[in-house]
């Protein structure tokens, strides 16, 4: 009789997802009367699954703004991280790269979304470059491609790939987006759809409350949470050291719980800021592929209404 809820992931299981697994395996969801299934990461983006009603919630990144602009029924309801975790990275042995403008004409290993090249271009331009890059779409293979030198740079989640590189001893150089004019953002969000929220407001609230509890528990017990995450994904997570170090980083860096103790809440200013930035760079396009001409009302993109106060 438990309410079934499905969650789609944005990537292979990693520490960004820890709260979901904690809430599931610590029984927080069950206590809230929910039966949560975490769908494995597949070829189909979480936002697509959510807006088509195949999943109630999904983990998404900034790509969610483009999907929303294009007409997808999506709404951000939970911020997994309170600070920007995205970085532009390259191999440190590349002496020809010292600042973003050196990336002009170089090869970028990407994930197949439109916002990527625009973001990188604006970073390069902010540094005084042309902003022309070669893009090769690779998905999860991007990091191997970077490691074996077949691409020059890519984007990473500093609390996951960044930690891994450090542990493995790969020297990497990184550029922080905000150093080059990109507003701070919640890099990882939970999204749902208006349709689902309207019809299942109580379930959504119960889910997000339990999820928040899960992330809080992880922030309080990073080591146990890391082991729980590993136990939940024995095939995917085989490097305990990485998971432990990553979660420690997420907690110590106040990503999961901000310095002010905020968990999950979406900062309207960040929402507005990144939204405007994307709009101004012509990344937000309507369903016909035409760039939006008027600034959208970004308050309709995100909502904290389903979070416990």
């Amino acid at each position, binding site marked *: 009789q438990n309410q079934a809820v499905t969650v789609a992931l944005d990537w292979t299981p990693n520490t960004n997802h820890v709260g979901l697994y904690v809430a599931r395996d610590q029984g927080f969801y069950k206590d809230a009367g929910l039966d949560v299934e975490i769908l494995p990461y597949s070829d189909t983006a979480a936002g697509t699954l959510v807006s088509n009603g195949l999943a109630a919630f999904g983990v998404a990144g900034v790509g969610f703004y483009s999907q929303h602009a294009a007409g997808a029924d999506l709404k951000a309801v939970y911020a997994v991280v309170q600070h920007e975790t995205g970085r532009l990275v390259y191999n440190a042995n590349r002496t020809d790269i010292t600042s973003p403008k050196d990336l002009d004409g170089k090869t970028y290993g990407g994930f197949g979304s439109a916002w990527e090249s625009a973001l990188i271009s604006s970073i390069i331009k902010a540094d005084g470059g042309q902003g022309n890059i070669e893009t090769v779409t690779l998905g999860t293979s991007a*990091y191997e491609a970077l490691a074996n030198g077949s691409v020059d740079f890519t984007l990473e989640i500093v609390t996951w790939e960044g930690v891994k590189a450090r542990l493995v001893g790969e020297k990497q150089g990184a550029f922080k987006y905000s150093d080059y004019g990109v507003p701070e953002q919640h890099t990882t969000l939970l999204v749902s759809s208006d349709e689902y929220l309207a019809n299942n407001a109580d379930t959504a609230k119960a889910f997000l409350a339990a999820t928040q509890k899960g992330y809080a528990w992880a922030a309080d017990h990073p080591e146990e949470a890391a082991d729980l995450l590993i136990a939940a994904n024995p*095939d995917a997570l*085989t490097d305990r050291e990485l998971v432990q170090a990553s979660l420690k980083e997420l907690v110590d860096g106040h990503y999961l719980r901000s310095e002010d103790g905020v968990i999950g809440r979406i900062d309207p200013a960040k929402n507005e800021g990144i939204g405007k930035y994307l709009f101004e760079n012509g990344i937000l396009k309507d369903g016909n592929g035409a760039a939006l001409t008027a600034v959208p009302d970004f308050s309709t993109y995100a909502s904290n209404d389903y979070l416990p106060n």
Partner: protein
Amino acid sequence: MQRWWHAVWPASTLIAAIVLAWEVYARFSGVKPTTLPSPSRVVEQLISNAPALADNALPTIIATASGFALSVTSAFVFSILVDFVRPLRRALFPVFIISQTLPLVAIAPLVVLWFGFGLLPKILLIALVTFFPMMVSLVQGYDSTDKDMEWLLRSMGAGRRKVFLLARLPSAIPYFFTGLRISITYAVVGAIFAEYSGAAKGLGIYMLSAKNNFRPDLVLAAVFCSAFITLVLFGMTVVLERVSTPWVRREGEAQ
């Protein structure tokens, strides 16, 4: 025994040589195991991950079997329809041909979008890739019927239905098995494909997450499993063909 060995040694030797060369290259060329794992490592991982692989192989096998069953059934139904109503043939065949030119990789995610995560989209995708070869084989089979045989039956007073049952359908049996053998190979590949685009479990999902976790050794172990399943299914169709067509004279059989 000796003849058996005679038939088997060239391929065995070649496969052994390929595996050996791969092993040597993987070990001594300095290529990273995350780029190209050695076969011994793949086998080792195959064994130590056997339970997980078996667990994931099951949904794939179920999807393959259901999809294939649907495909064969509908190929039968449509082929009979098309055999009895000629204009239908000219109507359906071009559509089926076009359906074969659609890139599965683009269609699979859409099908998952439309039909969700369950068995249905997998069955549909498997049917999409296997239906056409089955259908073509059956129709070719009906058409291969000896004209004199049909004339004979009609002269005996058989109607269209009897001619079909007594001559056209049995004539299609060898063609049916040819189609079966071709399709079964695509079926497993199709199932894995469908899983790639969205599934809770299955060899496709296993491969995808192994790939995403930089574990080409596990990817290859799962590839090995899927090739093995395909070969077993293929072998089953060959056995089925032998037992159900005792009248076909086969090479190497005494007359």
